[in-house]
């Protein structure tokens, strides 16, 4: 990869709090103009990493470079990156305009120029009419846009967003997603977006880093992450999946032959690092279908959940492994509890994990 295109280079960053390690040598790079998401459950280290980039936390080991320059020793106020905070942190005693102009004034802009630029950015987020209001007089969605405008105004090299949509209600959140993505494209600034919401991550990001327990589990495009998870954590965290214990017989060139519970042998795509022996096969519930033929596995129905367009069946394989199957509800009869079902596993859509 061309070194010049890298906006942020996180290089083996370790972060410890006393005896607790929040980041275990995280390495990743964020490219220029990219919408990059740090995705993971709470406590996975994503916010800590963001705060390390912003300069609110020291790193214990490792280095962070911005366009090739080491910024690790710089305090927050000397880093050309800006943050949209989870609770926005708009200065309650200042008007919207003063909030947006704050960073510009600190960078030595004249009051006139700062106001001009602030108004320009407010126009971008469609809040021109609210310039003289105090943040307390705005709705949650408006406050969110002020926070965005304030962080964008000084034209940071990278914009950091710490779960900026989590304080909004669902409907607004979906509208803001589109808007945010659009602003990112218009400004061409690299966005580093922290969220625990996989849907948010999948719909907005150019690339996603899935994190857990202070480790990066996988970095890839939304499609790669969803369709080709490398390990059990990613497969389980993104979307819904069945993890079947299989016996891996051969692994060759990205494919593997595995024996399903019950003995059927199928040929499936394999993640890098998958090895022969006991392993885990990830199969999405919608990729398992009841069949009239012998099927690849047989299961006994425990219960069902009616979801409108779909029906979700909870079943058990003969060895007791729980299995979730999603079938279209139109026309089909709902199998009663205790029914034995023959099921086909779509081999092309399953994936052998590297565990």
């Amino acid at each position, binding site marked *: 990869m061309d070194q010049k295109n890298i906006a942020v280079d996180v290089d083996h960053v370790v972060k410890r709090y006393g005896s607790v390690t929040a980041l275990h040598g995280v390495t990743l790079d964020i490219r220029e103009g990219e919408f990059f998401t740090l995705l993971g459950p709470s406590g996975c280290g994503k916010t800590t990493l963001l705060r390390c980039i*912003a300069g609110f936390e020291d790193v214990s080991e490792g280095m962070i470079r911005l366009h090739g320059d080491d910024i690790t020793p710089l305090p927050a106020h000397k880093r050309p990156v800006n*943050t949209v905070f989870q609770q926005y942190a708009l*200065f309650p005693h200042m008007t919207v305009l003063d909030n947006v102009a*704050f*960073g510009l004034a*600190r960078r030595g802009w004249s009051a006139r120029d700062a106001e001009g630029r602030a108004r320009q950015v407010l126009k971008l987020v469609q809040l021109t009419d609210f310039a003289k209001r105090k943040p307390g007089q705005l709705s949650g969605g408006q406050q969110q846009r002020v926070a965005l405008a304030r*962080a964008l105004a000084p034209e940071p090299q990278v914009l950091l967003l710490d779960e900026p949509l989590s304080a909004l209600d669902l409907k607004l959140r979906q509208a803001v997603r589109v808007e945010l993505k659009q602003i990112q494209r218009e400004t061409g600034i690299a966005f580093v977006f922290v969220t625990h919401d996989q849907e948010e991550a999948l719909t907005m990001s150019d690339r996603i880093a899935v994190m857990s327990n202070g480790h990066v589990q996988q970095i890839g495009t939304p499609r790669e992450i969803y369709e080709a998870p490398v390990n059990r954590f990613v497969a389980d965290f993104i979307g819904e999946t069945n993890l079947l214990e299989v016996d891996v017989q051969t692994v060759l060139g990205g494919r593997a032959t595995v024996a399903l519970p019950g003995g059927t042998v199928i040929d499936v795509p394999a993640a890098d690092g998958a090895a022969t022996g006991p392993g885990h096969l990830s199969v999405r519930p919608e990729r398992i279908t009841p069949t009239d033929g012998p099927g690849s596995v047989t299961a006994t129905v425990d219960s069902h959940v009616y979801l409108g367009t779909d029906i979700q069946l909870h079943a058990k394989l003969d060895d007791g492994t729980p299995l979730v199957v999603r079938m279209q509800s139109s026309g089909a009869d709902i199998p009663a509890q205790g029914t034995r079902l023959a099921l086909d596993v779509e081999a092309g859509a399953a994936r052998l994990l590297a565990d």
Partner: protein
Amino acid sequence: MAKTDLRRFAGFRVTTWLCLLVLYAPLVIVAVYSFNASTSITRWGGFSLKWYVDVFTGPEAPRFRDAAINSFVIAIAAATCATIIATAAAVAMNRTGRFRGKMASLALINLPLMVPEIVTAVASLIFFITIGFKTGLMTIFVAHLVFCIPFAYLPIAARMQSVPDMYEQAAMDLYATPWEAFRLVLLPLMIPGILSGFLLAFIISLDDFLITNFVKGAGIETLPTAIFGSVKQGIKPNIMAISTLLLGVSVVLVTLSWVIGRAGQSRN
């Protein structure tokens, strides 16, 4: 069946009114008698302002005037210094992370609240005499400053805890230096706390008798020591007038602090 109110206990309301009666009755009675026209302090002789006139023009007027000036000058100076020191201390305790001696510092700030007043008074006197510090206005000021610090600290620290540090982080994210983050963001948000801290310290300084009485030196009086000196010879009506005036000052200041506190609350 009627629902029982779990918050209600028989007799609690009566007790509360009794409590208010006990708290206010002596003050109200003194205030009423300060308008007594009679020279005898117990017989009611009709309404009059003559004792207030006496306070400002009577034989004791110069003594009380000097004492009042001393009291207010010391209270303003001590409260101002204590507020600045307490604000710095509150920043240190709430905004600078962990450091050695933090718990000891908290104990130190609260020390003037823990040491009984009479002990502080005695210790201060011994200290000033031993180091040869001439007792007078300066010693009163220093002693007041010390015990004003924790009173200023309490509301300031409480306010600072309620201001999340994300505002200053946002300021520093937007290129503000730590000093700018304090001056432009934290300080404006702290104004209600700082004002209540100042007022509290001011009232406490104005209130003090015991410590002042020990460290004031000969010939220097504050209002409480002057009043105490007069009362020792019996309660005279002019004392009641002065007391009522001082009571009025306290009520005005507390009301002010209350209104500021409420305004600060409703703004956030």
